[in-house]
């Protein structure tokens, strides 16, 4: 049982940046001054030590390197690393770690790009997971590495405007770009005119992804591993026009719409069709090559697994310069026709659910429960914190 925390260190960074450095000639050679210097040195070393223990120090470094134009850092632009503090539930054990994600398209081709249509094929490599420098405190010890061939198809989403409308839209966008605050934009006549022209041209988009993948699922020490060969289907329906029936009856977004209305973010109760949950289904043949749990039960043959993931995220309030969002994700893995010993041991089904209320200003509350395949035990994690960017 452990929990994953995200620590921040704005104050520490400030301390490091503002640490005074005086020229040697200005130093007093008295004992008191020497003691003061030693104390200052200790404080400095302590600050450096704490900085090296803080995940945000490494995140800052990674961001700087990934943002570099140097060709040598191109790998980092496809590799997304986030350093984190891992902490046990009793709070007695903490340690650094990181989550990573690598996603690289190797080949891509489009077959139909007329109007709003898109049909294309791509082959990409992916890898993702959590790694703790002390593996025993890794709460989500599940690494996923593999390759996917995917056929993508998207239809709808917008209807074309006339040339005259395009000219007006361009002029209005230039004027709206000059405003400095959301309140000014909202009250501007330009926005009213812009909405009258643009909103009717927004439609419903249906995106589908049909793929075949081969993946290695493992724990971070690669002591537990299994291979999964899957066929997968992604469904993403977005009703971008708020007046559409689909948007109005997106019941999932009703609670967020109520909060937006109560907080004054939306002037009326307005559910958004842009937040219709996205769903991904997969049917996989799993080869549990090294899975201690199944080996102990004497079941080492391949099996078929169904996997569903559904996700939702929506704005609940825009207050001042900050946005508050609610987000959730559900993942469900179910072994088809599992032997009774597997069912009895609870290894035929894995459910993971995470939900959070986050803000661009810092505060967040999150909850997650359940386990992913290869997780040793189900976990229930609550987090309440404040995230700062520096």
């Amino acid at each position, binding site marked *: 049982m452990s929990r994953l925390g995200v620590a921040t260190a704005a104050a520490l960074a400030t301390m490091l940046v503002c640490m005074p450095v005086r020229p040697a000639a200005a130093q007093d050679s008295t004992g008191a001054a020497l003691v003061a210097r030693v104390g200052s040195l200790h404080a400095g070393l302590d600050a450096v030590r704490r900085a090296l223990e803080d995940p945000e120090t490494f995140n800052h470094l990674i961001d700087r390197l990934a943002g570099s134009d140097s060709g040598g850092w191109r790998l980092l632009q496809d590799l997304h690393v986030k350093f984190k503090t891992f902490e046990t539930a009793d709070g007695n054990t903490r340690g650094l770690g990181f989550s990573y994600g690598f996603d690289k398209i190797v080949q891509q081709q489009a077959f139909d790009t007329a109007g709003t249509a898109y049909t294309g094929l791509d082959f990409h490599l992916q890898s993702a997971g959590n790694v703790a420098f002390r593996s025993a405190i890794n709460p989500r010890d599940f690494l996923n590495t593999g390759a996917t061939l995917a056929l993508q198809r998207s239809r709808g989403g917008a209807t074309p405007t006339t040339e005259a409308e*395009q000219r007006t839209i361009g002029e209005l966008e230039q004027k709206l770009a000059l405003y400095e605050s959301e309140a000014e934009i909202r009250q501007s006549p330009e926005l009213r005119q812009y909405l009258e022209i643009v909103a009717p041209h927004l439609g419903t988009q249906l995106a589908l992804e049909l793929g075949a993948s081969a993946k290695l699922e493992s724990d971070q020490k690669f002591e537990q591993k299994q291979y999964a060969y899957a066929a997968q289907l992604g469904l993403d329906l977005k009703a971008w026009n708020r007046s559409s029936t689909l948007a109005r009856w997106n019941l999932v977004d009703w609670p967020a719409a109520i909060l937006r209305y109560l907080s004054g973010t939306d002037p009326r109760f307005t559910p958004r069709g842009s937040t219709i949950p996205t769903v991904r289904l997969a049917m996989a043949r799993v080869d549990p090559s090294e899975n201690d749990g199944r080996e102990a039960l004497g079941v080492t043959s391949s099996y078929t697994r169904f996997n569903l993931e559904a996700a939702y995220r929506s704005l609940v309030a825009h207050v001042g310069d900050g946005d508050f969002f609610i987000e959730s*994700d559900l993942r469900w893995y179910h072994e088809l026709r599992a032997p009774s010993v597997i069912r009895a041991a609870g290894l035929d089904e894995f459910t993971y659910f995470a939900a959070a209320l986050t803000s661009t200003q810092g505060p967040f509350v999150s909850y997650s429960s359940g386990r992913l395949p290869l997780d040793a035990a189900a976990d229930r994690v609550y987090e309440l914190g404040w995230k700062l960017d520096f």
Partner: protein
Amino acid sequence: MALRMLDQSVRPFRPSGTVPMRQLTYFNAAVSDELRRFLAGTLAKQLDNFFRQIDGARFENGTDPVTALSDLTAVLLAAERSMADLAAVVDQDYRFWEEGEA
């Protein structure tokens, strides 16, 4: 304005250059990487729809739909890439009416 109309951000254009992608509505930190790629691809396609169908933009010379969508998706997938990065990709791949298309 495309991001505003697509419910991703209501922040004014000028002060939003440093806003990272993870602060847009589509960026759900809880999802698997497979689903995040799919979400980013859907939004990239709709941004392309917005630019070309509604704004009347055309591709810059040397840019095709695959390149434009790939560039947009790459930025949308990176949590820490900024609105300025996204704007740079859009400017690189699309030509809008005020840039000599009228």
